[in-house]
Structures are given as structure tokens and as C-alpha cells.
């Protein structure tokens, strides 16, 4: 993306002039609490309340198993959600991740069965990058709304899956299953992978031109273009990255399941769940506002909720009700903060 000429800047960095008599309304007391902080605050509250509830139930929320379980359960969703964050920040969204995950898990498992782990990883990266490229090109060049574009691509992948596979396929060697099962102390390798992905995305967004442009394109594509940003490239690259994340999640799941599974992505509901996690993390669905940190918080929040429900053996229907309410309430709170700040 770094195709703009280095603009010659001679003036040394100097203290910005005092921002005196600034226009704008007075700010709401808790407005200066960023939505990211709010997520983590909510996360903390959930943990405490959950811990109490579980304790009353005669259990303990913070055992090693549950702490590990939370991370294991959130890793895959977390990685997808990071990619989804990029897409949503850029004013787009990706409904094809769920099927792509399934596809990736199968590609990985099949090639690993054939004997080559590096080959499998390479193939997954290639496949996901291609899918992302298609998504991006359809959205930018054919000007199809991201919702329809990615939904269409999702259908295409689903068709291919149904056509080629009828059930789990391939085998993942023990060596690769370490990714899914090993842990260092209380931290599973999968969680480290997630952290790595998240940090990379955070770095891209906050330190590179690409990141600045994602915010610009998501904020207002016209303005971005008029200002000399090649918006199409940004969106395409973003979708490639988003799909890569889905691919990585596919690899992770393959390593956990020991095989490729054509339904692993959709069973996990990774498409809508990742979007939910992202907005739960305070990223605006409209784009241009938000970040990865919030998303991580959002994913963890969902995972902790899950874990608490697991402990209390709440049935899955009640879980859905609570999830739905939590998501809507959270976004309502952000909307309120924004309007009062």
C-alpha cells in the first residue's frame, strides 16, 4: 500500500499549539472511558459475578481446567474475530468465514495425511488468500454489497464442500496436534497463536499506513479516495487478511479435531458469532471506529459467559437468550456513550 511518495517534511516535531477555545459540547463523565475499557470492565464484572454464582452452586469458576477451557474455546473464534474486525473497520463484513474455516480444515487435514505439514499450511494460506481476494474483488470491482458478495462466496464454498466431502476427511499427525492440545502452564498454544494474530493486527492498524487507510476507508470511502487513497486495494487486502485469519482458525480446528470436518465452521457459527464478538468489542458496524483490543475483550466475554453457563449446566437455549440480550445491550450502551460524548 505504501505507494505514496514520501512527502518531504523538514519542520522538526514541535509541541502542538495549545488547543484553546475548542468548539464542541461538554463531555459526559464516563464518556472518556473508551468502549474498549468498557468491554474489559464488563468482562471483569462477568468473571466476578460468574465466580460468585458458580461458588453458590458449589463449584469454582477459576480452576485450571476452566481457565484453560475458556482459552481453548475462544481461540478459534478469537482468531476469526480479529480478521472480522479488520473487515468491519474497513466498512465491510465477511459472512464467508464459516465455510472457509471448514474448507481450510479439510485442505489442511488432507495434505497432512499426504504427509506434508508445511505443505498443508502453505496450501491453507493460499486457499484462504484466494477466497479473500475473490471477496474483495467482487465487492470493489463488481460493486456488490459486502453482505451479498460474501454470502454468495459462502454458498459457492458450501457447494464445493458438499460436492467433495461427505463427512470428516484427512488425518492430522500427532506432531501438528500439539498446536491444539499443548499448553505452557495455564496458557494453551492455541491461545498464544490467537494472541500473536491479534497483536499483528493491532500493529498493522496502529502503526502502518495500511492501518490508517483502513480507518479512512471505513470512515468514508469517498473522502479516502478523494484524498488519494486507493480504496479498492485497501478493501481487497483487508478481505485477504480476514480470510487468512479464517484459514488459520481452520488449521487450529483441524489440529484439535485430528481431521478436517466439512461442518466445523458452520456448527461453530463462526460467521455471525465473530461479527457479534466484534461489535460487542465496541467496533462500529458502520466502520472506521474501533479496534482489535475491544474484539479480544468481546470474544473473552462470550467465552466466559459460556464457561459460567457450562458450570451451572444452563441449557443452551437459555444461553442463546442471554447472548442475544448481552450483544444488543452492549451496542446500545456504546451508542449512548457516543451520543453523550
Amino acid at each position: 500500500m505504501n505507494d505514496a511518495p514520501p512527502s518531504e517534511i523538514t519542520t522538526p516535531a514541535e509541541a502542538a499549539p495549545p488547543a484553546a477555545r475548542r468548539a464542541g459540547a461538554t463531555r459526559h463523565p464516563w464518556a472518556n472511558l473508551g468502549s474498549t475499557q468498557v468491554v474489559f470492565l464488563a468482562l471483569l464484572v462477568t468473571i466476578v459475578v460468574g465466580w460468585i454464582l458458580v461458588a453458590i452452586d458449589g463449584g469454582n469458576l477459576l480452576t485450571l481446567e476452566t481457565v484453560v477451557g475458556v482459552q481453548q474455546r475462544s481461540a478459534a473464534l478469537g482468531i476469526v474475530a480479529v480478521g472480522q474486525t479488520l473487515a468491519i473497520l474497513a466498512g465491510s463484513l465477511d459472512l464467508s468465514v464459516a465455510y472457509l474455516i471448514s474448507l481450510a480444515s479439510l485442505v489442511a487435514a488432507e495434505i497432512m495425511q499426504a504427509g506434508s505439514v508445511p505443505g498443508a499450511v502453505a496450501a491453507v494460506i493460499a486457499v484462504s488468500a484466494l477466497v479473500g481476494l475473490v471477496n474483495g474483488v467482487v465487492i470493489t470491482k463488481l460493486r456488490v454489497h459486502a453482505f451479498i458478495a460474501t454470502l454468495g462466496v459462502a454458498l459457492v464454498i458450501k457447494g464445493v464442500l458438499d460436492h467433495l466431502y461427505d463427512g470428516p476427511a484427512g488425518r492430522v499427525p500427532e506432531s501438528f496436534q500439539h498446536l491444539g492440545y499443548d499448553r505452557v502452564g495455564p496458557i494453551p498454544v492455541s491461545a498464544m497463536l490467537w494472541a500473536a494474530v491479534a497483536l499483528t493486527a493491532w500493529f498493522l492498524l496502529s502503526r502502518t499506513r495500511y492501518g490508517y487507510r483502513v480507518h479512512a476507508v471505513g470512515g468514508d470511502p469517498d473522502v479516502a479516495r478523494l484524498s488519494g487513497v486507493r480504496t479498492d486495494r485497501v478493501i481487497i487486502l483487508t478481505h485477504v487478511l480476514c480470510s487468512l485469519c479464517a484459514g488459520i482458525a481452520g488449521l487450529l480446528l483441524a489440529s484439535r479435531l485430528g481431521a478436517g470436518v466439512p461442518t466445523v465452521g458452520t456448527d461453530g457459527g463462526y460467521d455471525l458469532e465473530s461479527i457479534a464478538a466484534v461489535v460487542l468489542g465496541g467496533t462500529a458496524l458502520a466502520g472506521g471506529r474501533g479496534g482489535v483490543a475491544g474484539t479480544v475483550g468481546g470474544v473473552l466475554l462470550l467465552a466466559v459467559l459460556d464457561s459460567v453457563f457450562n458450570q451451572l449446566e444452563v441449557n443452551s437455549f437459555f444461553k442463546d437468550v442471554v447472548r442475544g440480550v448481552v450483544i444488543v445491550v452492549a451496542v446500545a450502551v456504546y451508542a449512548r456513550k457516543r451520543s453523550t460524548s
Partner: protein
Amino acid sequence: TSDKPTDTTTAAASAAPASSAPASEAAAAGTGEQSTFFVQSDYDAQLGMRAKSAQGPADKPWEQAIDPQMVSTTQYKKDGGYHLCFSNAAVNNPWRQVGWKSMQAEVALHKEITTFTALDAEGKDDKQISDIAELTGKGCDALIVSPNTTATLTPAVKAACGKLPVIVFDRGVETDCPVTMINPIGGYAFGADGAEFLVEKVPAGGKILALRILPGVDVLETRWSAAKVTFDKSRLKVVGVEFTDGDAAKTKSIVSDYIARHGKLDGVWMDAGATAVAAVEAFEDAGVPVPAMVGEDQQDFLQKWKQNNLTAIAPTYPTYQWRTPVIAALKILKGQEVPKTWKLPQPKITADNLDTYLQPNMPPLHYALCGCESLPGFPETWGGKK
């Protein structure tokens, strides 16, 4: 049946009812080539078992076992109160709902079970893997597993076997490490029961429509494979093999189209009964007599059967198998021996015994072979009326 996969989410995938026609000339002509899931030895074994009489109390089929190979369990013996744990694949369809309620009721019967921890994997392999991991660390005395997918859950179950006695039921796993592996005779028997009935009732040359839920699910594939063997040997004409996604509306559309095209059908075979009633209605709405039907032991079908006194049969995949794992677990913890592979009888409902299974007070999607009539809380807990 337990393997009735809840149609995966997203997209026009499971869109509104879509009409349909013979999938291809090949399908229209015959039943196509045998699926890769077909294993001759298993087929023979299962068809053999149908004849055998099960050992154990006749009035408690869930405690019966067909030629059991007993294994000693003394090494697991310990004194009660027991802590039983259960990793459930899902409760996302009526069959699992009925079974799950029966299992809970069974647990309630045994005072020596002090705690019963159950985790629902919501149909997600990944979640079930971490659930099993979590349960093994919870100080359970025995772990019951109903795997979501045979292949992918095997490693997790293997891992659990090392830590505590494991009981697997319904779908299997690719390891013999569990102390016992419980399920009814199986898919080949189920498929054959229906097909043989049609061969018997439908005159030679009769047109048969085969309705399947979706391809690729092992248990469903075995059912079709068995039926296929029977049909190919018979002089019946299978005019179509269609997939319904277990969607009643789609089923009805497909059947209507076939009626429209062929004037009449002489028999309908199904690999799962959930859509049987929809199929029957298709004939009613078209104003043609309902031909010989293969259904399952759900009440709505049994009622239709009774009302319109259909020519029908209902092979079953009994939900009473949900009671057995609890019983097995207790036997194991008490050091009593259990069958290595615990094969439960798999009765079929025919015109003769229909009335014994028909329960008008139970909900339409209730499975007759729940073996729950004697359990406390029946029928309300299962959604029925006194």
C-alpha cells in the same frame, strides 16, 4: 434418530421449500452404485442379530443385550456416592430431547449417584473436545460420552480413557478403550426392516421413492446401503432417491412432484421418520391413496398410521438407549461385569403392535420407544398429558 443433523445454518442453503424431480436419469433408473460406507461384514452381523433374542429382563429392553461378551470391571470398583459425568453431543432434535430426559430420570432413580454433571456441546466437535477435557478434571467417577462425530472425538475419548472409566453410547468412536460401547443393533437393520416390508407389500414392478435426509452421515448411509441391497435384489422399481435435509416442507414438495410426474407411487422408503407425516400429507393433498410407507416411531406418524390405517412399518432407533449408560456406569463402579459392546434390541412397529406404542397423550414428535413410561415424572416431563 440421533444422527439427524440439524441442517447447518446460513444462507439460501435451507431456503424455502424447493420443488424437485428425479435427481438424474441414473437415479431414476435404479439406486446407483453402493456407497463407500457399506461394510459387508457389519451388514451380515446386524441382519443376523435381528433374529437373535436378547438376554435380560424382557420388560426392560434397555437392560437387555444381544450375545454379550462380558468384561470384568473390578478395577473400577469403588464405594458410592458416585459422581457421574456426561458429555452430550447436543440436545438439538426431538430424538435427543426425549433421550436426554429419560437419562436424567434414570439418574434420579439411583440414590447412590450424588452428583451428575452434564455438558452440552451444542453440536460442536471442538466444544465437546474441551468439555471432555474439562470433565476429566472434575473428579468424576465415570464419564458417559455421546460423541458428536465418530472420527473427531476419538482422540479426546482416548485421552479420557486413561483417567477414568468411559462409557460411549449412540454414535461410536474409533477405539476400544471405553469400558463399554452401547447402542442398538444399527443402521443396516433399520434400513433393511423398511425395505423388506416394502418388498413384501408392494407387487413386483411397483414404483418406490426413497427419501434420505442428507448424504455422508455414516449411520444414515448404512441405512440406505442396506435398503439398497434389498431393493436391488427385489423386482421393485426405485424411481428416485432424493435428499430432504429433514425439512418437512421440502419433503412434501418433492413427493408432490413425484406424484404429479408418475401419477402414483407404490411405496415410500425413508432413512428417518421425521418427515414421514409430510410425505403422507403430500398424497392426501394430491387426493391419491397413500401407498406403503416406512416411517419411524414418532407419535405423529403413528397417529396418522392409525387414523388412515396405512400400510406402514416403523423401524426404530430406540431412545431407551439413553437409560443404559447410567445403568452401565453403576454396574462398572460396583465392579459388576458389563458387555464390551452392549447391543440393545431394536424392535420395529408393525400393524400388529401399533396400538401398544400409540400414545395419544404424548406430543407429536415424541418417540414411542423411550422406555420412559415407568419413570417418575412421566408423562409431563416428556411433554405429555396425564
